[in-house]
């Protein structure tokens, strides 16, 4: 009888070999053993997005977030530093933070009253002298994430001491995050707390969709064009770039073929806002890519996605306007994902522009929105297929061939100002093969070891380009 570990290892080998060929075993979307290994090897090690700095602007502000399935308090302490504290009392492991957000000077365990400050240090406990002989409180604080760091206001944490610095982990993706979040010196803020909803799907479906699944737009989201929610016709919208920014992280741009073609640019953000965009924090190349872009969609491995594009919730009364949404695909079991969805906007938008962007985002990319309501439908059945006995017995492989050499019209692009492997036209699934190749490597890496975070220079290492 094959052991559980053997079965997971076999699946992971099939992912690595398959990604190169353009097939992925369906069982990765539902296998419970693989899922447990994901919690340990992916969510237990990678940099995981937790919050936007604008959610906790003041000292003592906190939000409750998750790494994998585990609860962490993300809190700004008295010195303004952000700490990520494991929400478990050192005495009996009881939850010490019982609100989703707030402002506090301390967290107190409701069981026996151990009390921690916003750095997680134990500062008091009832009858400490009688009960514990006044022993040192040091070493009895809340546990912290191994590392915490921000990039462009995005706060990440990792549980792995051996994780490379955040900037190195983001690799080429940082260049693309800049041109979404750093277009001017004001930067971005979130527009309220996140929506949260749970669906019966695997977290990877969200991650791969936002890595650049544009092919689904014409079928699944056809209604969005029918009601005038999005201004770029489907076939034109398929023109643009798919970019494997670095191992694991992928993204997609919709871009006009002619750089000066009229139509939405800067993701449809208002012209008055676009006038404030400059090269204070980014390069002229980054600014130019943003200018030409109609749509940006991307995923930071493993489960942090973002999307910027022109949308409207009511095409007959309001023209599309640039919206910006951030989301995490929070694992909730092999067949369940909790979606966290934030709307964000540039801080120097006027209140009216913010309201417009918020309403447009809510009416399209939210659980009640014209775009997103349809997305959950296929993902639920992907997970059903992924957990099926049939998929295991039949060794059921899913097709991820699009954009491989000779498959479709997509071609590698050499002239591109940014990092990563670039393909032109969005009829392409290398972005997803990139996700799963890195996923399998991360899953197999021994504690302390990390897969390469940069693509090798030689053609042999790039696989696809060697055949191009």
């Amino acid at each position: 009888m094959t052991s559980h570990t053997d079965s997971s290892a076999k699946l992971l080998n099939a992912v690595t070999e398959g990604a190169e060929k353009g097939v992925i075993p369906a069982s990765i979307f539902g296998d419970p053993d693989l899922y447990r290994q994901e919690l340990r090897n992916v969510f237990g090690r990678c940099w995981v997005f937790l919050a936007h700095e604008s959610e906790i602007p003041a000292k003592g502000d906190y939000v409750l977030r998750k790494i994998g399935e585990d609860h962490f308090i993300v809190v700004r302490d008295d010195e303004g530093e952000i700490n990520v504290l494991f929400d478990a009392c050192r005495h009996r492991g009881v939850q010490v933070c019982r609100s989703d957000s707030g402002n506090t000077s301390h967290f107190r365990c409701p069981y026996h009253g151990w009390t921690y400050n916003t750095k997680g240090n134990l500062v008091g406990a009832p009858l400490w002298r009688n009960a514990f002989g006044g022993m040192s409180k040091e070493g009895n604080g809340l546990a912290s994430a191994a590392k915490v760091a921000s990039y462009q206001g995005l706060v990440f944490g990792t549980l792995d001491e051996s994780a490379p610095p955040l900037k190195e982990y983001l690799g080429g993706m940082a260049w693309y995050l800049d041109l979404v979040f750093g277009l001017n010196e004001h930067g971005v803020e979130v527009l309220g707390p996140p929506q949260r909803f749970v669906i019966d799907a695997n977290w990877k479906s969200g991650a791969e969709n936002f890595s650049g699944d544009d092919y689904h737009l014409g079928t699944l989201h056809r209604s969005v064009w029918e009601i005038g929610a999005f201004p770029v016709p489907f076939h034109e919208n398929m023109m643009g770039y798919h970019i494997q920014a670095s191992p694991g992280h992928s993204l997609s741009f919709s871009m006009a073929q002619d750089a000066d073609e009229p139509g939405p640019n800067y993701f449809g953000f208002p012209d008055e806002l676009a006038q404030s965009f400059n090269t204070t924090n980014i390069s002229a190349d980054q600014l130019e890519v943003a200018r030409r872009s109609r749509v940006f969609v991307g995923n930071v491995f493993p489960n942090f996605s973002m999307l910027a594009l022109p949308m409207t919730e009511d095409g007959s009364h309001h023209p599309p306007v640039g919206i910006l949404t951030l989301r995490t695909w929070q694992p909730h079991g092999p067949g369940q994902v909790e979606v966290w969805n934030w709307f964000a906007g540039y801080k120097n938008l006027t209140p009216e522009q913010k309201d417009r962007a918020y309403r447009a985002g809510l009416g399209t990319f939210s659980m009640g929105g014209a775009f997103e309501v349809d997305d959950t439908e296929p993902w639920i059945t992907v997970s059903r297929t992924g957990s099926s006995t049939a998929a295991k017995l039949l060794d059921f492989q899913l097709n991820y061939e699009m954009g491989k050499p000779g498959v479709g019209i997509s071609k590698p692009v050499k002239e591109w100002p940014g990092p990563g492997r670039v393909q032109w036209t969005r009829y392409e699934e290398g972005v997803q093969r990139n996700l799963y190749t890195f996923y399998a490597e991360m899953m197999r890496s021994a504690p302390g070891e990390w897969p390469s975070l940069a693509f090798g220079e030689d053609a042999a290492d790039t696989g696809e380009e060697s055949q191009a």
Partner: protein
Amino acid sequence: MDSTLPRITADTALYAEVLDWIHTEAELLDDLREREWLETMVSRDVTYAVPLRQTVERARGRGFSPDTYHLLETYGSLDSRVTRNETPYAWAEDPPSRIRHFVTNVRARRTDAPDVIAVKSNLLLHRTRQDQSVPQLLSAERHDELRREDGRLMLLRRDVLLDLTVIRTHNLAIFF
């Protein structure tokens, strides 16, 4: 709802009219007659909102977050939703869920505006789809304002206060 405003009691013709309005609305929505609901029961000036909710300490109230929503609709955006469902590509509700609105605890009051009635009700929304045998349940308190327009009551405002912070349904492609 301002509790100092005069209560419309169950023994009045107006209360019976409100109750009949609520039952008619539930029937139209349960029967997927969304266009008819929109055109005959919803005011052009409608605000239709499902505010976002967080878990917070008792001292901070009920956790409804200001200016943040699951749904925030105008007549135009409701019309977009109905129009979308009329296309053959609205997969989220095609095949449609089976939806049942159970509306109880109906309380009505007059408001400062002579033609506007405030109505509170409890809603249990029971939803199944495809071969699902375990229902998705959404329970909420509805705060409605009904305005008399050309003789008939029309939905002017609806705030749906959900009893959930994490929504356990695959989408909100439905009407509360």
